[in-house]
């Protein structure tokens, strides 16, 4: 069974234009990036997956449960959402209390909640700041707190809204490691992103949203191999992909390592 099934999903706000126009998707455990220009309907789609918004027509099934028939609070045990702005959720006076808030809400026993909270804080590299006030930390650290607060809930599905905002290279690598780890554990990570290099290096599957529709849905390499289609969606392909294209390589490169390795191989072949 798919972790998420989206069936003929339509959504519009009251007296507003239709934002999502008949989306059909199925999600397995593959990590998935959602990309698209601003206003394409990405955040609305993610809020619908989380149950914060209800479809105008069509259905969303999370582990077979229709989001129309379950409250957001109850759905929280199955699907977690990291909001774009960590300031929207942080209200406790210590990092530890903030992270353990979610596990307590969904009824995880105290010792397990404590264990998963500490584990989540280690995963985001904040294990030495458990007693700090979140508002004494930097924006990027607060973003990591909000990620930890969802990881601690051990949900099978994790939604991330722009996780790389304000992150330096260390933060990006840390988040990349988390996405890969969760995918390895069979958990689904879906993330909205504008950083195409990060998408290329991290995610197995990529969806392109445009004007409320999914215009591309494939493994990340296939999506970025269609450079013109990506540009038509007002997106810029990853830098390494563009470099390969400009050098006339037929291969689509997603990481600098692949590119360098292939270039060295080609050079050796040329020498011979």
């Amino acid at each position: 069974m798919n972790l998420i099934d989206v069936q003929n999903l339509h959504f519009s706000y009251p007296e507003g234009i239709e934002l999502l126009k008949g989306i059909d998707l199925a999600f397995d455990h593959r990590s998935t990036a959602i990309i698209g220009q601003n206003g394409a309907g990405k955040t609305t789609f993610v809020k619908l997956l989380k149950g914060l918004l209800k479809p105008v027509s069509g259905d969303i099934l999370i582990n077979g449960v229709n989001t129309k028939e379950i409250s957001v609070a109850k759905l929280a045990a199955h699907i977690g959402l990291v909001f774009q702005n960590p300031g929207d959720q942080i209200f406790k006076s210590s990092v530890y209390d903030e992270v353990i808030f979610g596990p307590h809400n969904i009824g995880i026993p105290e010792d397990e909640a404590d264990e998963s909270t500490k584990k989540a804080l280690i995963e985001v590299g904040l294990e030495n700041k458990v007693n700090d006030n979140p508002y004494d930390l930097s924006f990027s650290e607060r973003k990591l707190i909000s990620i930890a607060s969802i990881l601690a809930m051990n949900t099978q599905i994790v939604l991330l809204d722009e996780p790389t905002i304000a992150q330096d290279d260390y933060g990006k690598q840390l988040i990349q490691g988390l996405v890969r780890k969760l995918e390895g554990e069979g958990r689904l990570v879906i993330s909205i992103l504008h950083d195409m290099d990060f998408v290329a290096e991290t995610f197995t599957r990529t969806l392109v949203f445009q004007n409320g529709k999914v215009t591309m849905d494939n493994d990340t390499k296939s999506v970025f191999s269609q450079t013109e289609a990506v540009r038509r969606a007002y997106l810029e392909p990853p830098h390494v992909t563009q470099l390969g294209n400009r050098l006339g390589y037929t291969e689509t490169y997603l990481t600098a390592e692949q590119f360098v390795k292939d270039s060295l191989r080609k050079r050796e072949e040329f020498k011979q």
Partner: protein
Amino acid sequence: MQNISLYVNKKSFVHDVDFLTKLIYIFVFIAIPIISGSVIIGLLAILISLILHTCAGVLKKLIPIVALSLFVLLSVIIVQAAFIPGYHIVFFSLGPVHFYQEGLIHASLIIVRFLDILLVSSLTVLTTRPSDIVETLQRKGLSHRMGYVINSIFQIIPQMVSSMKTISDAQRSRGMETEGNLFVRVKAFLPLIGPVVISSLVGTRERAMALEARAFSADAKRTYFHEEMKYRYKTPVRIILLLLLVVSIIWRVL
């Protein structure tokens, strides 16, 4: 984002009238029924205001405003007609409660005045952009700090409402139950206060710095982005309104 202003953006001759003329209209149309002491004059003022609402295309927006005031009006009738001592002529009775004719007449006068004030004020509020009101007042000498405070209310309150919604979503996403009995709702409200207050404080500090970075406290004479609203017939309209006021005073004195 939700807008807390009641302004209705339409094209009509009422919308074209400048704020100061509307201010004179408010003053005159409130003063005349009070000076005259006549219910008929009050009703006439209400009728004129209703016609102006219709011409401006804002009559529909007036309905909820009047509906909200019905509770107050009903209280006035009950208190004035049934509970003020000294009245003698019973108009009708509801069980042991007698409603007196003198009280009902007095109540009708109060209601007419109340509706008159409500209608003349609502016409101005519904047909004048808040920023135009502030800008007009600033041109007439209101401090730009006070002008900013008034303008920012219209911006900050909807922002806070929107931010409350996002914060509530963020907490619900982490399994916090927000639906249920009063205790559940109160408990759910607490995690919202921190982020809302903190984000407001941070926002205020950032806004203050951004304002200063753009010379908010500078002493230089200010210029305005919008041209001053100039109503073509403002002088004759103002003269007519003031004449009406003078006539009503003379009529009352004589």
